[in-house]
């Protein structure tokens, strides 16, 4: 399950650190292991302008948040949401979902994680923070 790509993102995370300005912030924690992430989101003109984050956690949670920033930054909110859906589907598929590399890019490396249910929560931690942050901004975005 520990693909090179995962270990690379773990050792050299992309976009790490909390930055200003941001529209919404979300703090998420994995209650079984105590891993946590704080994620900030800046949306400009319907596009994800910046995702910044801090956190402590295992290789899977750190790497997947790093991949997240690559996948959503610069994309429209709609695109980011459908990427998220694809990633969530992959992770909850128990290894039966064939990932689409065009959509998930480095995210396909997590296909193996889906076979370890206890680690799926790790892989989704950052994404849940992203989803929550998005929900907190959505009123403004839609307005």
């Amino acid at each position: 399950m520990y693909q090179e790509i995962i270990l690379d993102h773990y050792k050299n995370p992309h976009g790490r650190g909390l930055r200003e300005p941001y529209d919404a912030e979300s703090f998420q924690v994995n209650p079984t292991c105590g891993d946590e992430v704080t994620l900030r989101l800046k949306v400009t003109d319907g596009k994800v302008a910046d995702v910044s984050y801090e956190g402590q956690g295992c290789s899977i949670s750190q790497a997947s948040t790093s991949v997240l920033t690559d996948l959503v930054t610069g994309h429209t909110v709609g695109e980011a949401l459908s990427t998220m859906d694809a990633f969530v589907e992959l992770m909850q598929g128990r290894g039966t979902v064939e990932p689409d590399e065009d959509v998930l890019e480095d995210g396909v490396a997590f296909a193996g994680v889906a076979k370890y249910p206890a680690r799926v929560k790790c892989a989704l931690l950052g994404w849940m923070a992203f989803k929550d942050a998005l929900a907190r901004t959505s009123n403004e975005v839609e307005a």
Partner: protein
Amino acid sequence: MTTTTANTTPLDVAAVRADFPILSRTVRDGKPLVYLDSGATSQRPLPVLDAERRFLETSNAAVHRGAHQLAEEATDAYEGARAKIADFVGATPGELVFTKNATEAINLVAYAMSNAATAGDDAKRFVVGPGDEIVVTEMEHHANLVPWQQLCQRTGAVLRWFPVTAEGRLDLSGIDELITERTKVVAFAHQSNVLGTVNPVGTLVRKAREVGALVLLDACQSVPHFAVNFRELDVDFAVFSGHKMLAPSGIGVLYGRRELLEAMPPFLTGGSMIELVRMEGSTFAPPPQKFEAGVPMTSQAVGLGAAVDYLNAIGMDRVAAHEHRLAERALNGLKEIPGVRIIGPPDTVDRGATVAFVVDGVHPHDAGQVLDSLGIAVRVGHHCAWPLHRSCGIPATVRATFYLYNELSEVDELVNGVREAQRFFGVA
């Protein structure tokens, strides 16, 4: 309740019995066991015993807590059982909380409601206090009565109840005076564990909805015996116990509508039900985890899942049809005996296979003893429904309860046994 037998081939009782090792034992000097006490607790078929054992010999681990393979397998087995059981009663897995028995499930709701007083704004809708009322019925099992008495004692709310008619039906004539704007909860049995009466859920739910009261259905004696769908019944909460439906003891179920479980404060607290814990205070996981503190009844959930598979394979309509036949034969047989009085509806309309009766001149304990000496296991006493017995003016009854593994011939043995008791005590 489906009691039409038209489209269902009858149950092959002999085949069913072969799955229950205990049914082939003898009691009291070699008498074949005639087990007519399934209303108290049912027996377990081999597929249930085997499922639990297989789990323990291969995948046992603490669920939702470990990252190793056994923990994964155990969690899958536990959550897989939840999904299966939820489906069996028309619920989603997130609406199904495992408890140790139905009694705990009712207490859970009653305590969550008193906890609501100090649990913040989200919990406000559950707060009860002076001026509020809880409505039950006089035919309730103690499990659906005493927790509400205690909730009233803790909060100052008032308990009110529907009386029971001479025929053993709910007396709904005072419904508009009983269920009012003051009513916070209406809690009642789907099927009485003494009378066999199946209560009019729809009528009570409609009235409760009118006044904004929550409805809790005690489905202990319905879910094991006929197809029940909580979503369709439109109740807010429902409870039942595994041990009455071929599954292990030590596991019960609380069903709650999702939005209610989300807003309701927790009851038992500890491991596995938390979100964040600090010495200064804690927050809680979403349902159903919020209500499942500590290491749960893992293998028992697996066993209950297997029981649901077993019942599904037979078909609940078939189970109900078979019990209908048993009830009919028991009612007819007992009614023919002079001096025997059925406590509960005299026919099988809206009525399950629970037959309670008294024998003039023979105390229930004595009747039960004679039956026991013949190998017939019935229950005697008030069956945890003491107020119901008081309202009937009797201290106790003999109760025979039937299930899918009972033969029609066992009904006849019961009837003959009652005659034998009369002879023994010189009243026939």
